[in-house]
């Protein structure tokens, strides 16, 4: 089972990954966007780490709801409301449970990703974070490691796509040939699950 501490570790691992990869994310966003995705994510998850330390929420759901709210209040841009909604809705779906199973997490995460799709109006293949998140939902029932792999593959698969949503869509054909920055950060978020679970155990809790 995954306890509250697992979810805190997930958030801190994401914060470290995003901090480490911020320049790469901004670089991707500078090719087909406005060169701020790295600093957006770093600012947001930095704030998430801070607030989790200060407020110590007591359940998995509460960790994610608080993290999501914090993203909404600190990130801005397209990714703030979208990632904020992802975590908030996932957290809400987890309810008040003190521990959750991987299957429960997979289901809740599915609800979170669906909320992202609804809020942003994007679907698979539009070259957005959804292209990393949707395959992750599928694989998460299997293991957190599989989810990480699926998200990464999904992110890389955005390279040949033409963007239909977000800022990259303004480029039309010229958006082809670049990895979507939001898909790349989503892959980091999902990969952090495996890290939170402890290396190599695949997270089958």
């Amino acid at each position, binding site marked *: 089972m995954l306890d509250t501490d697992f979810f805190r570790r997930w958030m801190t691992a994401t914060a470290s990954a995003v901090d480490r990869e911020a320049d790469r994310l*901004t670089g991707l966003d*500078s*090719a*087909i*966007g*406005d*060169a*701020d995705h*790295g*600093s*957006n994510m770093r*600012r947001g998850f930095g704030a998430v780490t801070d607030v989790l330390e200060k407020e110590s929420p007591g359940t998995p759901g509460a960790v994610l709801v608080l993290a999501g709210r914090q993203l*909404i*209040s*600190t*990130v*801005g*841009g*397209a*990714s*703030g*409301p*979208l990632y904020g909604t992802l975590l908030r809705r996932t957290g809400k779906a987890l309810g008040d449970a003190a521990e959750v199973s991987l299957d429960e997490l997979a289901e809740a995460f599915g609800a979170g990703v669906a909320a992202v799709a609804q*809020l*942003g109006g994007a679907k698979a293949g539009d070259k957005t974070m959804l292209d990393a998140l949707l395959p992750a939902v599928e694989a998460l029932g299997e293991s957190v490691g599989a989810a990480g792999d699926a998200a990464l593959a999904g992110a890389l698969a955005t390279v040949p796509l*033409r963007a*239909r*949503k*977000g*800022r990259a*869509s*303004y*480029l*039309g054909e*010229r958006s082809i040939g670049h990895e979507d920055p939001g898909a790349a950060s989503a892959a980091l978020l999902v990969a952090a699950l495996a890290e939170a679970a402890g290396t190599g155990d695949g997270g089958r809790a």
Partner: protein
Amino acid sequence: MLINVPETVVADALRGIAAAHPDLTVDVENRLVVRRDAPVAGKVGLVSGGGSGHEPLHAGFVGPGMLSAACPGEVFTSPVPDQMVRAAAAVDSGAGVLFVVKNYTGDVLNFDMAAELAEDEGVRVARVLVDDDVAVADSTFTAGRRGTGATLFVEKIAGALADEGAPLEQVEAVARRVNESSRSFGVALGAVTTPAKGSPTFDLPPGELELGIGIHGEPGRERRPMMTSGEIADVAVHAVLDDLRPTGPVLALVNGMGATPLLELYGFNAEVRRVLSERGVPVARTLVGNYVTSLDMAGCSVTLCQADEEMLRLWDAPVRTPALRWGR
């Protein structure tokens, strides 16, 4: 870059705005710029905002006759809902608040969240989307047309009507009408350097330009070898007119993207005027300058608004903000 560290660029600017403009109340921590006399009894509040880096838009347009408050986000990053909720509370006199939102996914999502929260707190909120950039096709293949130069027209004209005491529905309606009557097209002659990235966001060699750019340092729709001012005016004005098809006089904004000298911009205005007269379009008013910018981008944009009598009257009405000021 003339900065301290990238992280404090927006806060530093807000402190500088506070020091320069005693008519504005600046909340550096919560990132708000508000008319000092807000809320004005019986007046609809006008709130706008967006990523920073487009100055004087929006904070430079706060004051009597234009915006009640502006919410600056990080550079090129839309503000967070908390800012707009605070702004709405600060400017609402009970007559309601109009959010002027440029059509970008981030701005739309954050302003929508803010509208929901503000309404929960009892503020009546209407929203107008600005989407004037004809370089982007409004189709299922895009996030829709970007909001650029028309934002200035919407804020000035709706702001004037709000100052006359018109109710929220009318202020919203005129804002929508201005947006529907406006189109823009932009060109970059050089790329942007954002504080966070510290180097140009894309590579634009001297002898080339980008057609159909936005105001966030994103590349345009097409790259071309350098063109003359006259050729650029041809492309931009034809693109705007072919979409707008005006049947009467227009308001013209000949806008610099930030690093284009005013000398060149005035020369470009002469070419814009030439194309308009070749197409038989009379010009009622012209504004030339760096108003809706993209940090240190070299380039320009043309925005035309087919203005009816009411719009012209409201355009001419007194305004007193840091960047637009006339009539009082």
